[in-house]
């Protein structure tokens, strides 16, 4: 396979993209109004920068991705040679995948894969709380209960 068509194609794509950007820069109009320089936040005056801290959930996804993507790399390298390595290789990759699934189950059970609030869980916790507080109410005064909670 000659390499040059690929390179040429890539070059053309780059030129094309920069051409579009340049053209729109040249052709586009300019204006300056009172609120031009402000971020769009659905009409509300924006407060502060958007360099916020976001939930660590996202980090978790990134980690999951990094780990499992690398596993994919391993699996891919098996997939290309699976005929040569035969059943032994298959056994090997099965073990690998089983371990991978074990990890997945572990993360699942530990809530790493719960990306939003789970309605059922909240409901269960609420019911439990309610039951407990009912049981408490029979025996202890509210003051004691408050102390117990502290």
């Amino acid at each position: 396979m000659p390499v040059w068509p690929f390179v040429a194609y890539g070059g053309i794509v780059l030129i094309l993209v920069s051409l579009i950007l340049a053209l729109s820069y040249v052709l586009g109009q300019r204006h300056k109004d009172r609120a031009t320089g402000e971020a769009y936040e659905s009409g509300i005056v924006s407060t502060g920068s958007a360099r916020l801290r976001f939930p660590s959930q996202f980090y978790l996804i990134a980690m999951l991705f990094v780990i499992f993507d690398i596993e994919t790399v391993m699996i891919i390298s098996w997939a290309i040679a699976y005929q040569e390595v035969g059943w032994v290789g298959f056994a090997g990759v099965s073990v690998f995948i089983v371990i991978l699934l074990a990890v997945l189950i572990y993360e699942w059970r530990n809530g790493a894969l719960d990306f939003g609030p789970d309605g059922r869980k909240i409901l269960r916790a609420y019911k439990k709380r309610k039951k407990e507080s009912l049981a408490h109410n029979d025996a202890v005064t509210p003051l004691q209960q408050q102390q117990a909670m502290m």
Partner: protein
Amino acid sequence: MNLHPTTAGLLLAGILFVLGLISVLIRRNIIFMLLSVEIMLNAAGLAFVVAASHWGQADGQVMFMFILAMAAAEVSVGLALILQLYHQLRSLDSDEASRMNG
């Protein structure tokens, strides 16, 4: 310059490695330090690939994959630790994270 491809490859890897090393040494932000270490690891990986292609073996590529996996695991753990550290210190300056001495 008429470099042998292997030599050239190793040279490139070496340059990357040194760049990473310098960066680790002068950076004060832990995330950047981590990044620099990753560069060094990848430089080592590159060296392996170059060496493997020199000998016509696949071992170097396999090694590179392991390096990749290890780097990934390291980044994962590293990020988690950094998050925790940030939680405590409100800063990622490596000088701040140096309360132990002696």
